[in-house]
Structures are given as structure tokens and as C-alpha cells.
């Protein structure tokens, strides 16, 4: 996706593909990938991952384009620094802020997406393999008699999602010298 920084033609082609991916519902995309490769844990992870790519690509591209026009990038170029080094050491680190925020938000939905795939039977087929999504799906049948069966996996998802959000916040602070004390 760094390609977005070089070559207008390449950028155009890549972004149109990304736009097409964005047009499809995330879950549908994930289902397609899962159906193509067959159900397994790896599939779930891959499927959910691929479905998130376009959002990150757009976000990172936008941030990099806006950072790319800043004076300090020009200053590095004026020093004679090569384009690849400028992209990696100047533009990329300064473009990561929104991506990190987005990724913490996405992790929560990714867990839920994975759970949904498992619910649809596209997850790991091994019933002895513990997975919150599968557990939640199984618990549905006993919701009235044993609500705790659903509550604990759900709590697990929530706590994990919250944890990742806090982690993201901490990472952003650690990476930004302005927020460091």
C-alpha cells in the first residue's frame, strides 16, 4: 500500500481495486474468502483480516498523502535523503496515528466478525477447540436456562476489545514525543 506514494497510474489502479473492495460488505467478503478456502481457524483469521485491508489502505494513504506535502518532508528531500528513506522514516511514522486508533476499534469488530463466521459454521470445525464466537453461538440455545453460558464469552469479547483500545491509546502516546512526559 506504500505504492500510493509513487506513480499516479499505479496509485489510481490500486485505489480503484480498494474502492471495489470497500463497496462489498465486510462480512460478505469474509464469507467469500472463507468459502473459497474452506472452514478452519486460519481461514477465519485470514478472512477477517482481508476484509479490513481496504479501510486501512485508504486511511494510511490519506494520512501519507497529507504528511507527504509537509515542509519537513521537503526539508529531508532538500538534504538529499532518498525517497524510500523519506517514506519509511519520515512519512510513515507520522501517518500511523489514525491507523493505530482505527486498528484498536477494528480489533473489537474483528473479534465479533470472527464470532459471526464461526456461528455460520465457517470457523474451526473442531468442537473441542474453544472459541468465543462458537461458544456464544452454542449458548444461544440455552439462553433462557443458563444465561451465564452466553454472558462469559460475551464478557471475554468486551474485555479483550477494551484492552486493545487502551493498548492503542498507550501506543500512540509512547510514539508521540509531544505526549511523552
Amino acid at each position, binding site marked *: 500500500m506504500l505504492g500510493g506514494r509513487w506513480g499516479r497510474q499505479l496509485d489510481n489502479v490500486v485505489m*480503484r481495486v480498494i474502492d471495489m473492495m470497500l463497496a462489498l460488505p465486510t462480512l460478505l467478503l469474509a464469507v467469500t474468502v472463507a468459502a473459497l478456502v474452506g472452514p478452519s481457524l486460519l481461514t477465519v483469521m485470514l478472512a477477517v483480516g482481508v476484509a479490513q485491508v481496504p479501510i486501512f489502505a485508504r486511511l494510511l494513504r490519506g494520512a501519507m498523502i497529507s504528511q507527504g506535502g509537509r*515542509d*519537513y518532508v521537503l*526539508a529531508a528531500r*532538500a538534504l538529499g535523503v532518498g525517497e524510500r*528513506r523519506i517514506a519509511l522514516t519520515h512519512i510513515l511514522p507520522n501517518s500511523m496515528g489514525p491507523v493505530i486508533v482505527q486498528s484498536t476499534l477494528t480489533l473489537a469488530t474483528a473479534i465479533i466478525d470472527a464470532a459471526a463466521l464461526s456461528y455460520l459454521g465457517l470457523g474451526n470445525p473442531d468442537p473441542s477447540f474453544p472459541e468465543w464466537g462458537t461458544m456464544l453461538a452454542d449458548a444461544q440455545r440455552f439462553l433462557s436456562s443458563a444465561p451465564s453460558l452466553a454472558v462469559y464469552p460475551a464478557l471475554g469479547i468486551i474485555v479483550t476489545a477494551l484492552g486493545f483500545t487502551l493498548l492503542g491509546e498507550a501506543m500512540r502516546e509512547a510514539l508521540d*514525543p*509531544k505526549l511523552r512526559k
Partner: protein
Amino acid sequence: MSLLRIEDLKVHFPIRQGVVIDRTIGHVRAVDGVSLAVERGQTYGLVGESGCGKTTLGRAVLRLTDITGGAVWFDGRDLAGLDARSMRRERRRLQMVFQDPLGSLNPRQNVGSILMEGLRTHGIGGPDRGGEAPRGREHRTLVLHEQRGRVVQALERVGLSAKALTRYPHEFSGGQRQRIGIARALVLEPDLIICDEPVSALDVSIQAQVLNLLEELQGELGLTYLVIAHDLAVVRHVSDVVGVMYLGGLVEEADSDDLYRTPLHPYTRSLMSAVPVPDPEVEDARERILLAGDLPSPADPPSGCRFHTRCPWRQDERCATERPELRRLEGVPETGTHRVACHHAERILSGQIQPSEERAERIVHGA
């Protein structure tokens, strides 16, 4: 020989339109045929209002923007013809100081790393300068030691100390940040520094500090400056030679004092009359030439003289049809090296042509 000689430089930006496939529908002529020469050890000041192409010209010299046509001779080599690699190497000798001191420093780099970057890029420092491959840890320590020495020296030259090395740009005041920007340029020991609006983002009392610093450095290191600014008073203060730009072209060029004493081009005259002077007596006594209207679009510049649409001295002959060349005055030897791009400069100077009241700005006031 001039250190920098620009010949008929053109920078045109394509205007693109289209949703999926871009089409070029025209060009913005940001710089449209400028020639000038900067002498070693001197300061050339380029002044003009927004949109005149002065910033683009500065960037084009460093090849930070693509050159459409013309040549940029730097110490005998044409930079416009260099490939990207050689140009990057050449940048060691041409440096730039930017307008926005905070924006031009990477917020995630500390001062040490900002200043080291150029040295690392060009592999400067260490005992062997012959370009042999570095050998071992001992060698690297030596290189690092020398690089650090150079960085500290540059910091001290701009009035900061080694304590600044581990700090980040946001921890400094505006004036200090601009000093860091200057140190970054100095570290590479360049011959020419292009200063693009070096003080316009700073407070008044800090501006003077930075201007004095630039002058001191020139005295100590024999630097050559190309100073680009919109403020004629600043440019006149620092420059040996001043060039005035309007809509992509140079309209007048003269020794700094000559330009102030006898501005020849109608645009320079109106620009000069508009610069405020902090002295009420001068302000009250001054003649003001208020220009009509706004700057025309550089995508569609007027025919003939670019300034004719706003010029109070405009004549019916030639102004709208023929673009004037930058030339010396005929029959006025005392104007020396003073050059102007105006068909009627002699007759304007002698007072044969008077400004037209109608074309000056009309300000009508109600009851």
C-alpha cells in the same frame, strides 16, 4: 563566475481534471522565463506577492519541483540536466531554510537526529573521505564522533548548545526552531542557502535576531544566500541585489539601494508605496499608488506585459501586445546595472508619462 545562474527558467504545473482518468486541461505558469545570477558571497533577494512564483523558483533551483524548461547553472554544472542520484549528491552544497520552523522539522525526530540526517545521507565524517567502505565498529565510532562534533558546532554557530540534541522540536520557541532549521542547513557546509521566507512566521523581536544571525553567518562562513520573501523591507535589509517578481516573471532587478532610490517598474513603485514604515511622519508624507483589482490567474496570464491590467502608467502601444524583456535603460547611464522589464521605463522615469487616476484603485465611500 556567478555561483548560481538561472537561465530562462520555466516551471509549469499541469492542471488536471477527471474522475477516473486524469486529463491535463491547462498549465499554471508559476515561473515563466526567469533569468538571474547570484554572485558568490552575496545575498540575492527575491521579492513578490503571493502567487508570483518566488517560492516555486526557490524549490526549482533545488529540483524539489520539476523544471519545465531552462537551465540552473550552479558552480558550472547545469542542475536541470542532472539525474536524480547526482542531484541528491549536489544538494549537499545547496541547502534550504523554510518559512514554518515547526512544520519543517519532523515532530518525531529529536534535534540530534534531525541534524545528523544530512551527514548520514551524504556519508560525511570519519577519517577516510575517499569513499571507501566503512570498516568495523571502531570506524563507526570514529565517524559518529566526528558527526556529533559537526552537529554541535553547527548548533553553537546558531546560538544553541549541545543540550538541545536530545530535545524535540515542540520543546523550543519559534525563534529557536528557526535556528535549528538553519543549523540543519549549516551542518552540510553548503555554498548556497536558499531562505524561503525565513522570518515571516516569527514575532517581530525574533525576526531581527534571525536576520542578524543570517548576516553573522554569512560574514563568518562566506555563505551565498538566495532570500525569498514577500516583505520588501526585509529583503532590502539583507540583500545586495534585489529582484522583483510579478506573475511568474522578473520585472525589475537592481542593487538594493538603487532599487529603493529609483524604482523603475510601475509594479515596484506601487509595491514600495504600500510597504508600511514605522514612522508617522514618513507615513503621512508618502505618495501612495493603490493598484486596481487583484492578481490575475497564473493559469491564464494577461498578454503582453503581465502587469498591464493593473498598471496606472499603461500605454496603448505595446503594453498589451508585447512582453517586455528585462533590459537596461537607454540613455540613462547612471542607472548602471539596474534592469527593468517595461517598455516605457525611460519616459516614466522622466515624468513624460503620468499615472492615470482612473486606473488607480477606486474607493467610494457612502454617506
